[in-house]
């Protein structure tokens, strides 16, 4: 039987703390694409991506204390009983009012944007070609400097 080499754990430096970032989207392919893009060179960043396909899952894992939540507006097109984006915002605001929420939505409707902005989200982004790089920029800015406004 082999003996494991004894390592002195007290002398080892702790790995740097990775800030959790939540992505919540019911569209699994978009979720995978966004997650893959953000996780691409994970080792160089100080954040860790968690992907959830429903609001309930994200709320269930809120004890990880995410630094940023990236949220879709329509989370329940198939199941009207499930939580919508607004429900998630309200729930998160109740528990952790300081977490910045970024809405990433395909909705061009201005009233939806205003409704979510008045709930106190950080910003509202449209799912277009520049969305991925914008999300990346916002995550970096929020994690390095704290909320900008």
């Amino acid at each position, binding site marked *: 039987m082999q003996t494991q080499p004894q390592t002195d754990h007290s002398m080892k430096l702790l790995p740097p703390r990775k800030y959790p970032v939540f992505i919540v989207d019911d569209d699994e392919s978009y979720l995978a694409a966004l997650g893959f893009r953000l996780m691409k060179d994970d080792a160089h960043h100080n954040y860790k991506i968690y992907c959830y396909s429903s609001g309930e899952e994200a709320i269930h894992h809120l004890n990880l204390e995410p630094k940023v939540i990236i949220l879709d507006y329509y989370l329940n097109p198939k199941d009207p009983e499930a939580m919508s984006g607004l429900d998630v915002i309200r729930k998160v605001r109740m528990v952790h009012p300081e977490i910045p929420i970024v809405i990433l939505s395909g909705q*061009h*409707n*201005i009233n939806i944007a*205003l409704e979510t*902005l*008045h709930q106190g989200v950080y*910003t509202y982004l*449209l799912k277009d070609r520049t969305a991925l790089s914008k999300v990346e920029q916002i995550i970096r800015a929020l994690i390095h400097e704290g909320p900008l*406004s």
Partner: protein
Amino acid sequence: MKTAVRSPGEDSVAVKNTDDIRIAVVEDDPMFRHAVEYYLKKIPGNRVFAFSSGEECFRHYHQLDPEIIILDYKLDDREDHRAMNGLDILSEVKSVDPAKEVLFVSGQENVDIATAAIKGGASAYILKDDLAMNKLMDEVRAMLFNVRHRREEVRNSKRLIALCTFAGFIFLIAYLGGYGWFTLPMKILFAVTGTIAALLLLTNRSKKKMHIASEDKTVKPGDWLD
């Protein structure tokens, strides 16, 4: 055609001395501008100044010092692409006074513009649709309430400053006079009131000013209606 500043009239020089709340409307569509003016004038206790462009508004900004500003996004009806748009005006106004109440009214159904306006500090973004005027009136009523509340707070703080200064002065005289009743607690009271007065005076002192090239131009009553 030159669209001039409308409505202040002959008594515009004394505009700051009245108790009315000053509202500036910046809107290039004359139809909507007149409608907004008409409905705002129905509410008693405010003064409305309508401008057709941002440059014109800033020319008279410090003279009027409006407390509520109603902005449009697109302000280049004469196809002048160098003209300021609503977001430029918003950032300029907010850089001087972040607590200023600004309301965005626009026909733009662009989500990015709405997001930028709300994040830039506008209180609300109202779309120019059938219900625009009703929503506008609701928002303006809420804002008028806020402005009155803030004025009351400022008035109270000024009263407190005056009281503290007066009390400190009295105690100073008593101290210098060397009356027998001026014991240690009185000295402490003097120090505390004097410190509070100094702090309040210092905090109310910091007021930035916007840099405008045409600022030194004085406005005479006749200038309003050119």
